[in-house]
């Protein structure tokens, strides 16, 4: 009996042929290799090449760029700033986005779909347009809000926003919010609709219900949202480029500058590669941690 059950799937696979899955995924696989893996490998290789102001790129294998990144404190500061901004953005979206999703989930019918649209709407607008909006509101003396507050006498000097880390975090949080809200929202959908009533009937007050019943159950959603927001923020380009400009650089804008302004492609490639490796390590590591910690909720 067991023998029959064991061989059944095998014979089915044999009928379809062992190559069928490969044949079916080949087009996507080719595209994946062609536009992602090969350029990526070339970028990694590029980071070991030499570059000079007058000689251009020399295809040799040296550790010059990596040595420079490792020793020059400028790069350490810049990477530290990149991840600091990403962490703060992640915290801000989590602190605002989780309650937002919870409140949204408790709304009734019509309001729920309306506000869901309000939250997801920005995804339809270009990141550049959204970030420029912040620049229009807070950009120096001409920013709308700054002008208004100064004319009202609330503040003397314009609120520093452009070229500050705070400004970058705020603008990035705004851009990333939908990802957090959607992620928490998905976790909330998996809650038993009667779970709050169950806790209430056992004598729990509203604060206890949120702290002891809701939070632990949506935590995986918050954390997976955090991973998305963190990796997108750390590698974000448009928002840091507009808010930070060339004065306040992060890894992505630095790599861009090395590629297109200094034309030092190998150094830019080294920065980009380091950013990618660091992100992969952080994301994979925290994902493993989360899955182990919340095994019961994930099942």
């Amino acid at each position, binding site marked *: 009996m067991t023998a029959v059950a064991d061989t059944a799937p095998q014979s089915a696979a044999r009928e379809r042929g062992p190559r069928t899955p490969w044949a079916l995924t080949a087009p996507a696989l080719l595209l994946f290799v062609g536009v992602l893996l090969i350029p990526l490998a070339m970028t990694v290789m590029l980071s070991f090449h030499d570059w000079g102001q007058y000689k251009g790129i020399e295809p040799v294998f040296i550790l010059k760029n990596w040595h420079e990144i490792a020793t020059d404190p400028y790069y350490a500061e810049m990477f530290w700033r990149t991840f600091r901004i990403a962490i703060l953005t992640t915290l801000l979206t989590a602190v605002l986005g989780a309650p937002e999703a919870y409140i949204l989930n408790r709304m009734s019918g019509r309001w729920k779909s309306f506000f869901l649209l309000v939250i997801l709407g920005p995804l339809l607008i270009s990141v550049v347009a959204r970030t420029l909006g912040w620049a229009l509101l807070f950009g120096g003396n001409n920013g709308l809000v700054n002008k208004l507050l100064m004319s009202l006498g609330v503040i003397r000097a314009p609120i520093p926003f452009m070229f500050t880390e705070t400004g970058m975090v705020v603008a990035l949080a705004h851009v990333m919010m939908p990802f957090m809200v959607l992620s928490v929202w998905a976790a909330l959908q998996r809650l*038993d609709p009667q779970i709050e*009533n169950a*806790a209430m*009937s*056992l*004598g729990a007050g509203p604060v206890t219900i949120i702290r*002891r019943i809701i939070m632990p159950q949506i935590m995986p959603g918050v954390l997976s949202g955090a991973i998305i927001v963190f990796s997108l923020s750390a590698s974000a380009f448009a928002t840091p480029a507009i808010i930070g400009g060339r004065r306040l650089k992060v890894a992505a804008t630095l790599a861009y500058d090395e590629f297109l302004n200094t034309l030092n492609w190998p150094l830019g490639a080294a920065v980009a590669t380091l950013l990618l490796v660091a992100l992969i390590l952080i994301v994979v590591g925290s994902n493993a941690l989360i899955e182990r910690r*919340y095994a019961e909720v994930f*099942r």
Partner: protein
Amino acid sequence: MAYLELDRVAKQFGAQTVVDDFSLAVGKGEFISFLGPSGCGKTTTLQMIAGFLDPTRGAIRLEGKDLTAIHPAKRGLGIVFQSYALFPHMSAAENVAFGLEMRNVPRAERAERVRAALAMVGLAGYEDRHPRRMSGGQQQRVALARALVIKPSVLLLDEPLSNLDAKLREDMQIELRQIQRTIGTTTILVTHDQNEAMSLSDRIVVMSQGRIEQIGTPEETYERPASAFVSQFLGKTNDFAATIDRTSAPARLVAGSWSAPAPAGFSGPVTVSVRPERIGFGDAGLAAKIVTRIFQGNHWLFQCESECGPAIVIRQNDGQTQPAEGETVRLAWRPEDMSVRAGAPA
């Protein structure tokens, strides 16, 4: 005095009246079932007692005190939800302990009560298991233990057994009844399964479209259904059109060629309702022809065409020869085995 009392309770959602004029007095320790088809307002009524919904009209009292004025968290009722609503991130023991924690029961006593509650529902040794790693029946038991461990004044069960397969459901019915008898908690069970209601309850509240059709013991509701709805809903029944014949003295109740002394208080067209197992084949009575005869092990099921329309008859398989298909028979029953209602059958 009634322990739990619902006094003309009504609930409206917008213009739609979902529960209306619901009055019920539950005695202490009683086991009551709300029985009715889907959408008749059973859950709504239960949720009003629990406090998750506010009644539009009427009063709910527990030991004479107005229950609607008390916050659901302070009512001290035990509730088992249809979906169980267990806390998936807590183990079975933590689930059961939650209500005790909320009551600030000291740790040692808490552990002891949790252990006892889980043992009572047959889950000793499952303390550290998480709900998602348990079977439906086990989850159901955890939910029951969680509701019972707080020593609730009333236990509310919303179709707790409907997610279980037939065999497990029967086992749990027996267990539920035993547990309820042992600890004597006043219990209200919502169900749309008439067998469940009959085998568990002291009294059944039969509901239809938000209204009470009948309140009575299982025997009463089965033997003396107050309306056509009740008799149809609680098992199979035969409704025959009959009249009261006042030309003879004393007056007689007549259905086709069957007749009996007329019960008091009726006139004109009436409906005679008889359960299939109460009809026998005799020498006199309603003329009928047997259309089909089905053998069902311990009994026979006959579908007949009678003078007063189709009729079903159930006879015990007691070894006697039974009439064959196509045979003409006479259907007879004792007057005490029927119930009579005014008006023609629906």
